[in-house]
């Protein structure tokens, strides 16, 4: 579904990513880990096509509109209501949505009572849940998650995890960048693979994450920076 071969990226003199190989298959969940400045978000942006690599190849075997992205920023318009936001993003998916798709999605995200409230009045957790709903309307085949759990309470994190795993069951490939110790503790249990970056270089790619408890130490303690 997604394959990166020898991807290298510089910003000016600074080397961000060095010769990275990566792959994500259908119905997989890969955690992308590394200290601050290791290049995780840049790698994710290259996977999404937002940033061009200086060297290497990105091969995406996906239908148009098949990529979804959920980061700290919610991509929602604060002046619009929850329903208006979903309606707009639903129309940009290119899919014909069932008539009740929007109310159903709001129910699923536990936001139905706030359908007509402006998103600018929402808490962080509510906004992120709505953003997840926005994403699910498009039924992405490749979902890129850039620390979306940051600032969420336990209930919102559980909902996020539930929906993301549901997507994987439906055949989507998930790549999840995380720093959260709570999310990390799940890595050994639910992830199909863990890829660790250290100073812009791929340190490891293991498809048996249960056996790599030492990775947490590497990610938590190594100083970042790709100079």
């Amino acid at each position, binding site marked *: 579904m997604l394959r990166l071969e020898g991807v290298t990226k510089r910003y000016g003199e600074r080397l961000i990513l060095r010769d990275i190989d990566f792959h994500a298959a259908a119905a997989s969940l890969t955690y992308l880990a590394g200290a601050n400045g290791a290049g995780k978000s840049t790698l994710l942006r290259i996977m999404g096509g*937002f940033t061009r690599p200086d060297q290497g190849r990105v091969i995406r075997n996906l239908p148009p509109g098949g990529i979804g*992205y959920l980061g700290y920023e919610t991509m929602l318009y604060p002046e619009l209501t929850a329903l208006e936001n979903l309606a707009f993003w639903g129309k940009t998916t290119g899919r014909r949505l069932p008539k009740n798709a929007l109310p159903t999605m709001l129910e699923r995200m536990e936001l139905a009572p706030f359908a007509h409230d402006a998103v600018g009045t929402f808490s962080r957790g509510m906004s992120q849940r709505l953003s997840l709903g926005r994403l699910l309307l498009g039924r992405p085949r490749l979902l890129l998650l850039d620390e979306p759990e940051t600032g969420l309470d336990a209930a919102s994190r559980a909902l996020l995890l539930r929906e993301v795993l549901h997507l994987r069951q439906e055949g989507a490939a998930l790549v999840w960048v995380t720093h959260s110790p709570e999310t990390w503790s799940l890595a050994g249990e639910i992830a199909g693979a863990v890829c660790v970056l250290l100073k812009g270089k791929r340190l490891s790619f293991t498809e048996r994450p249960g056996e790599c408890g030492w990775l947490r130490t590497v990610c938590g303690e190594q100083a970042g920076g790709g100079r």
Partner: protein
Amino acid sequence: MIRFSLVLAAKDLWLLLRGGAAFAQALLLGLLLIFLFSLAASGEEAVGGSGAAVIFWLASAFCQTLIFTALYAVEEGQGQRLGLLLAPVPVQALWLGKALAGLAVLALLQLVFLIALAVFLGRSPEAFPIQGGAMLALADIGIAASGSLLGALARGRGARESLCSILLFPLLIPLLLGAVRVSSMVLAEAPNPALTAALGGEIRSWMELAAAFDAIFLAAALVLFPFVYGEEG
């Protein structure tokens, strides 16, 4: 692609008119220009068609800078731009959507400016209504096409209004020259029949020039927009 552009334009118009700040700012700026001009001209002989045309297009051009920076700014606050880039349409659909929204707002502002010209300067369209309308449409299309491209170029930069003005105005000079010249004939007193044919020929040549510049702006925007707003280097 067209459907996506229309959806984006409708959302932008809704945000712009509901939020009101950018629209009100542009409207007040234009009205202030016309009002100040009327003060400067008072006490002397009535403002001619040329003076009224210049102030009309000056107000339109200034306002368009504000409108396009506002149209692109709404996609920056929460990373909405990335979401739009993931939509299953060519990235040029974003340019078209913004251009359509800008064009609609410009037309609305110009309607108010025309009323203001009548109120403050005592000038309203007197002759060549069809050619005047066509020239207005051609000039607005060119302004919207280039404004949407340059608004994208200026996005995320601190002094984006200034940058957009610096980039936009020199490119628009030929188009604005034609628009001012034709508008001055429209806003002047109706010419005698002998002059009408000669002026009609001049209007046609300005319209041809405007159409040529529109084609250049449209082509340039379609080619350059993906580099300006799409994948970053």
